[in-house]
């Protein structure tokens, strides 16, 4: 087996794979299983099609984005870490100022492994959730973007598996295999986080997912990119360059649906865009409410022991820890949070380290708001009086202190009965979902696009929209 793999050409990398016997042996075992997984759980029906994909072959500006037509199973999933900084020091937590760890510190081995496995588990999960979506792609451009997201999620899995294989010994190898054994929505061995077990059935959901849920990923990666465990930090830093594209797909995808709605509203001022095959802004708002609230959950509880442990242990920082913050110990700092005391919302001051989930969630919500502003600008350009918004962070939560209690879209407390009456105004109804599903008719002709979404302003890598992004 070893002799049959030409590592350098098959697996682009900057981790000296060709001379790392241990990693080679681990990969020999894992690679066939990964390909089996891709062939079983990836966008299998398009395996023999040539897709215009971006591949990273090195981490420098020339190499990180090379475009060309490639069949997905032949995609060169590489292993890349951002360049190592000489004399790197740990930036935060109780180990601030010490040399960054180049090996896993024994005392944090288990915590690190758990953090890495939890993060890694989401990467293949999203591929599984989206595996049938290409069949209903509104254009070849969008289909290509979906596949780009898919192969990069696959690469992110590789990146995490590299860390497990290289630094966590036998346990790491076992965890790497289990990442392929758990399957999204599988009744026996589901993915770790609930959100990643729901299939993505429509493109509106896909764009919401890449906008909101992938953005959770961005913030998790930002905080891990600060880690005192340098290989993890470097891996995450490189993953972030790719993650940005996923959010671009989400934000502009939603923007194009909104743009189409506005066009239809202008053309037919007296009727609902639905009557003309578009998606009305109210429905879009309900999808925003659903996806942003469920993604808010992914940051975990407002007050958390784990978050304190991870920050104190210099394992997981805040987003832009070194750039944005001055007190990197955060030991004497406190944060005042709104929490639910069982009967009302109250302010509570907690140690900053225990509030790190909420700190990250705040940054995340701020980032989401920028996307919403971008959409509202589109609406504004059409001279339409309508404003999309994010729901209040207390709205529709299933994790954290507000879970189990009902709040309206502005965060006001409400009774269960009142919620049942009103929830149809805020969250997609069965009828909404049926309608969106009914729009999911493929448009696979080059240069054409479905009627519920506008074409992009420009194509990929300087190409036109009318380009053979996928050779069907």
């Amino acid at each position, binding site marked *: 087996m070893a002799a049959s793999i030409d590592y350098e050409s098959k697996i682009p990398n900057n981790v000296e794979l060709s001379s790392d016997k241990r990693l080679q042996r681990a990969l020999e075992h894992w690679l066939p299983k990964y390909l089996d997984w891709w062939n079983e759980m990836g966008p299998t029906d398009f395996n023999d099609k040539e897709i215009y994909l971006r591949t990273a072959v090195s981490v420098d500006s020339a190499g990180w984005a090379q475009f060309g037509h490639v069949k997905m199973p032949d995609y060169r999933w590489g292993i890349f870490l951002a360049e190592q900084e000489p004399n790197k020091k740990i930036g935060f937590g*109780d180990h601030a100022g010490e040399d960054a760890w180049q090996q896993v510190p024994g005392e944090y081995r*288990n*915590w690190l*492994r*758990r953090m890495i496995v939890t993060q890694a588990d989401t990467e293949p999960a999203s591929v599984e959730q989206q595996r049938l979506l290409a069949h209903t792609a509104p254009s070849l451009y969008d289909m290509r973007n979906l596949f780009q997201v898919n192969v990069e999620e696959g690469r992110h899995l590789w990146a995490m598996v590299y860390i497990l294989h290289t630094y966590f010994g036998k346990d790491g190898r076992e965890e790497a295999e*289990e990442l392929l*054994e*758990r399957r999204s929505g599988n*009744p*026996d*061995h*589901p993915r*770790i986080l609930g959100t990643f077990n729901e299939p993505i059935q429509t493109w509106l959901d896909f764009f919401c997912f890449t906008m909101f849920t992938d953005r959770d990923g961005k913030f998790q990666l930002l905080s891990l990119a600060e880690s005192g465990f340098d290989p993890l930090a470097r891996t995450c830093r490189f993953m972030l360059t790719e993650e940005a594209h996923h959010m671009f797909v989400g934000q502009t995808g939603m923007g194009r649906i909104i743009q189409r709605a506005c066009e239809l509203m202008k053309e037919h001022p007296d009727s609902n865009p639905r009557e003309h095959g578009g998606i009305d802004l109210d429905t879009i708002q309900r999808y925003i409410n659903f996806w942003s609230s469920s993604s808010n959950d992914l940051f975990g509880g407002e007050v958390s*022991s784990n978050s*304190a*442990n991870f*920050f*104190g*242990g210099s394992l997981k920082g805040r987003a832009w820890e070194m750039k944005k913050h001055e007190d990197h110990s*955060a*030991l004497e700092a406190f944060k005042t949070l709104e929490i639910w005391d*069982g009967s009302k919302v109250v302010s509570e001051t907690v*140690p*900053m*380290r*225990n509030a790190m989930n909420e700190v990250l969630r705040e940054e995340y919500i701020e980032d989401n708001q920028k996307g919403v502003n971008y959409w509202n600008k589109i609406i504004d350009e059409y001279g339409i009086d309508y404003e999309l918004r994010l729901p209040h962070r207390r709205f529709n939560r299933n994790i954290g202190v507000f879970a189990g209690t009902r709040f309206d879209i502005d965060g006001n407390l409400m009774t269960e009965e009142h919620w049942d009456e009103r929830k149809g105004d805020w969250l997609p109804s069965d009828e909404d979902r049926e309608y969106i599903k009914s729009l999911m008719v493929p448009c696979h002709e080059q240069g054409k696009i479905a009627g519920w979404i506008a074409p992009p302003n420009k194509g990929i890598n300087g190409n036109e929209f009318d380009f053979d992004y996928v050779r069907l």
Partner: protein
Amino acid sequence: MAEAATAPAATASDRKHYDFDLRPDQFTHWQLSVEGDIARLVMNVQEDKGERDGYVLKLNSYDIGVDIELASSIQWLRFTHPEVKCIVLSGALDRVFCSGANILMLRTSAHAFKVNFCKYTNETRLYLEDASASSGMKTLAALNGTASGGGYELALAADRILLVDDRSSAVSFPELPLLGVLPGTGGLTRVVDKRMVRRDLADVFSTVAEGVKGKRAVKWNLVDRVAALSKFPEVVEEEARALADSVEKTTTPGIELARIAPDYRDDGFDYEYVKVDIDEATRTGSITLTVPDSVGPSNADEAYAAGAAWWPLAAFRQLDDALCHLRLEYLEIGTFCLYTRGSADVMLGIDAVLESGKDHWFVNEVRHFLKRALKRLDLTARSFFAIADEGSCFAGTLLEMALAADRFYVLNDPDSPVTLGTSTMNAGPYPMSNGLTRLQTRFLGTPDSVDEILAVGGTFDAEQADDLGLATFAPDIIDWDDELRLAIEERASFSPDGLTGMEANLRFAGPETMETKIFGRLSAWQNWIFQRPNAVGERGALNCYGTPNRPEFAYART
């Protein structure tokens, strides 16, 4: 460790009182249902309904309130649903079985409470094992998700452990790596002594916070079987059925188990047959148990008809309940005199029914209940002096109370006759944790003495009791009051910690069993660790857990 702030109140007026005898319709944290010969106990801990403020019972973590419901369930099932052959334990949360004792609760509890909490939960785990061994009521731990710490310790008390295999649910002991303490509710002992996991693997298991899952958990014998998520309900049924079918049981209906609770007064509390007197000033008290005027039911059927009102069950449930209240509510009362009132002949008459009816399920249950109540007495960390004065009846079952006591004062004066006695109940039905009878433990060096005492049969007087080695001291009426007063005053003046340690060492002579190891080794070490700065100092692990601070250890090993 800030003890004062949250220590249970020490004075009569604001003493916190517990209710140890609950029925399923009063439960907050467990759902109990019985269907045919299978009972289901589903743990569904209500986060904000902890026994006191200051902690949230997240992720099916428990406090004393949760465990009282569990203990009540097992007692209730044994008497009210004797047809049950299998209890299925599971968790109501998605992918979580139980995450053990609540850490914040432990951190904010005074040391004495922690020790008593731990003791009570240990006794409850042993209830499950006793139900299996003595009543043919097996337990299946159906772990629908991760069982960590005390959650896995609860599972270890079951006959079979079934774990869901969803590639993430595990059994684990995170105590040492995360909190710097031990899985002290029998966990370490049961892993090596009951499940006989290899010690090196047990070492690995007990230091990996996230635990062991799937096939490895089976291979290491941490669980008996794993089942895929979609097959899990089916396999639970199969396992429960197999356990139920492994035993033969009665189909006679159970009895109503009337609830018991003490009537509190300023200087103690009372039940029908048990009276507890407290003297706060001297930190002493007494427990008096009264035998009825006549034997009452003369055979098993009559006893069954009397049900919960039958004296041995009624009186010992009251004694058992009283001990729980004393342990958790009257911490500063350190020395107790044990008194009995009534006729030794009546007591021996009741013992005769306990013996002749032992093949009846109800009498069998009562015998085992008496056994457990007496064990609870053995395990209560207070000084006990049994006092055989005029009017007392330390005979048969009640002689066990005297043998459980640290000392036995017998009034030996012809003007104030005292009657004692033995019965077959002293010869085996009430073993101690060490597996021996109290007589065997008392006369470990002279086993012939046991036979000699049992051979006497029936009642005897104080002089003979002294000759047989039953009395610690047997003063006459002239010295009696003074001797007792001095002994009690002296006892109450000693260090309570020193006394607890001394008594626990002297009470359990003889062989080690899993039970003695749990209380004498695991709990004792745990209690030591719980007092050490590495756990509860300002930067101790238990204190730092969940806070911004990480623990700082003093690394010197003792």
